């Protein structure tokens, strides 16, 4: 198992290397450049050229790429062109919010999706079944930002149950160590700060969870239906085991493999998809920052962001592969 993990991590190196080369070429081939964003309408060809020269953008691409890699091995992602601050500093400040939001959405999707999918399969053809299948179709169709606006209008603005914007109430004087606000609250034992941060996470979390929730319901339902038809479930019933034991030990455990796969794939999707939700709730995650970086063609920020997403995605899927061997002894990791 240990060797498997080490090998998978080593395999990550060439993958990231390839990805970085492709990205570098693609980004630099995009029309325009950071100088346009910095100067706007006022730029003359001379000033533009001057800025390109200063940023080192006139040098051949391989040399620029070499510099990028040299910094990268020292875990330095360079300096943002528009904010003039270290990219790593910017990320450490903003990324935790996005990660918290993504994890909240995933917890909601898993916590609601698996039980709902199971019940839908067990009571196939019932109202619950039709409602969850129909609902999941709706969930995948409604755009996240639209759902986010609707939720905000109803539950935050009209009913006032949830805060409308932000990650934490400004009146709370919270200490921030890691910038994961919930974690910070727990670490410093400032329970009110942690509770308030969770409170702020719920509405955006629900909005962001809609698509993964729908997918998990569908996959769980299909997978449970298949397992329910297996002979060993009949054996378990013939032993007179309780409904609970049959469900947990014999049905769900066997039905979890496809669900685990989809969870791994969905997490990456969510991380990059959190941007719109963050905008609606003025949630200070990485969303707005990345949006600006795209329109400004802030090369170092974009490169760093995509590389980090890739690493997280690979790690999550490594976890999924490890969970396979825990779920099913026939899957031996080598």
């Amino acid at each position: 198992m240990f060797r498997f993990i080490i090998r998978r991590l080593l395999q990550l190196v060439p993958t990231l290397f390839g990805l970085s080369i492709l990205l570098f070429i693609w980004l630099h081939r995009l029309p325009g450049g950071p100088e346009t964003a910095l100067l706007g309408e006022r730029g003359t060809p001379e000033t533009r050229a001057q800025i390109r020269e200063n940023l080192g953008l006139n040098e051949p691409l391989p040399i620029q790429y070499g510099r990028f890699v040299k910094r990268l091995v020292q875990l330095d992602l360079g300096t943002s062109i528009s904010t003039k601050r270290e990219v790593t500093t910017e990320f450490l400040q903003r990324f935790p919010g996005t990660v918290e939001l993504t994890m909240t959405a995933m917890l909601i999707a898993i916590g609601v999706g698996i039980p709902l999918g199971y019940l839908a399969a067990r009571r196939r053809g019932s109202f619950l079944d039709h409602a969850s299948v129909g609902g999941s179709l709706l969930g995948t169709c409604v755009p996240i930002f639209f759902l986010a606006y609707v939720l905000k209008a109803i539950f935050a603005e009209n009913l006032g149950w949830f805060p409308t914007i932000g990650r934490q109430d400004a009146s709370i004087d919270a200490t921030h160590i890691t910038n994961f606000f919930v974690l910070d609250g727990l670490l410093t034992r400032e329970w009110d700060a942690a509770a308030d941060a969770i409170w702020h996470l719920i509405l955006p979390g629900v909005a962001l969870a809609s698509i993964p929730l729908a997918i998990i319901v569908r996959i769980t339902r299909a997978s449970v239906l298949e397992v329910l038809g297996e002979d060993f479930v009949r054996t378990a019933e013939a032993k007179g085991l309780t409904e609970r034991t049959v469900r947990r030990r014999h049905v769900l455990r066997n039905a979890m493999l496809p669900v685990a796969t989809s969870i791994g794939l969905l997490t990456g999707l969510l991380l990059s998809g959190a941007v719109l939700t963050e905008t609606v709730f003025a949630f200070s995650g990485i969303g707005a920052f990345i949006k600006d970086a795209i329109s400004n063609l802030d090369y170092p920020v974009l490169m760093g962001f995509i590389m980090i997403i890739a690493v997280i995605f690979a790690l999550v899927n490594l976890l999924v592969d490890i969970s396979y061997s825990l779920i099913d002894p026939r899957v031996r990791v080598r």
Partner: protein
Amino acid sequence: MALLDVQDLSVTFSRRGQRTVRAVDGVSFSVDAGEVVGLVGESGCGKSVTSLALMGLLPRQRGVQVGGSARFDGTDLLKLDLRSMRDVRGRDVAMIFQDPLSSLNPVVPIGLQVTEVLVRHRDMSGEAARKEAAELLDRVGIPDPRRRLKEYPHQLSGGMRQRALIAMAVACRPRLLIADEPTTALDVTIQAQILELLKELVRDSGTALIMITHDLGVVAGMCDTINVLYAGRVVETARRKELFAGRRHPYTVGLLRSIPRLDAGRGEKLTPIRGSVRDVLPWTEGCAFAPRCDRRVDACVGAPPEMTPTHTGHEFRCVNPFPLTQPEEARV
């Protein structure tokens, strides 16, 4: 009084837009304590559905209708609610299934699959349950049981898997064991071992056994009483000796004739029953076997044939049975 008394059991499957299927159409038989009873017939004659109905394992949904009664020690199994049925299953009535690989949960160790029955019905836990499970595996002839408890089904051979399933079924010393084609998925040498094991367990523990099979060879070796099923009804029932000495129903004779024999002459052809199980007449319109029967007479069609009793307890459902004095053609 019999341990299990099945009267007029019927199971119908109906689906919207499709013809209703009567899988079991009035089966009656009884099992005494410690007795081995065979249910014999071709695929599709309703053997397995009968056993699933007794265990309450048929899908509980509209479209599946179970009728008749099955009194086990006085209580009608067919009328029990799901909760009480779960108490009976595995404790009083246990079942062994056909395909040992697919009948075992692939992701749960063998040990847990045995102990979970002990935990559920015998209030055992932890080490006591593991110790008992190891003893059970030992009793069904699995060597090195302590190690096997930790293994998974895919690490066991076919015969070992079936032994493990048998261990789970006998774990709570049930009074009735139902074995649904327990040897069909195994190769011949293992088949004999498994049958021998079942015979031993039944003899030692006094458990009654319903043996469901299409193999008359299995029946000949084990069963005290034999019920031959055709198209969802019992067509002949007799003690083993009487049946093999003088079978009366043409279907039973046909079944016996179609067994391949090692001592048959070279080039000698098997005599299969012509047609297939699908060529049936509904029982209400006459004898279901009539379309395939060589001894058919006019009286076979028109009214359903009744069970004809004889003084020995041998009964058959036929208007033109083979005569009791053995003519050459009825001998196999």
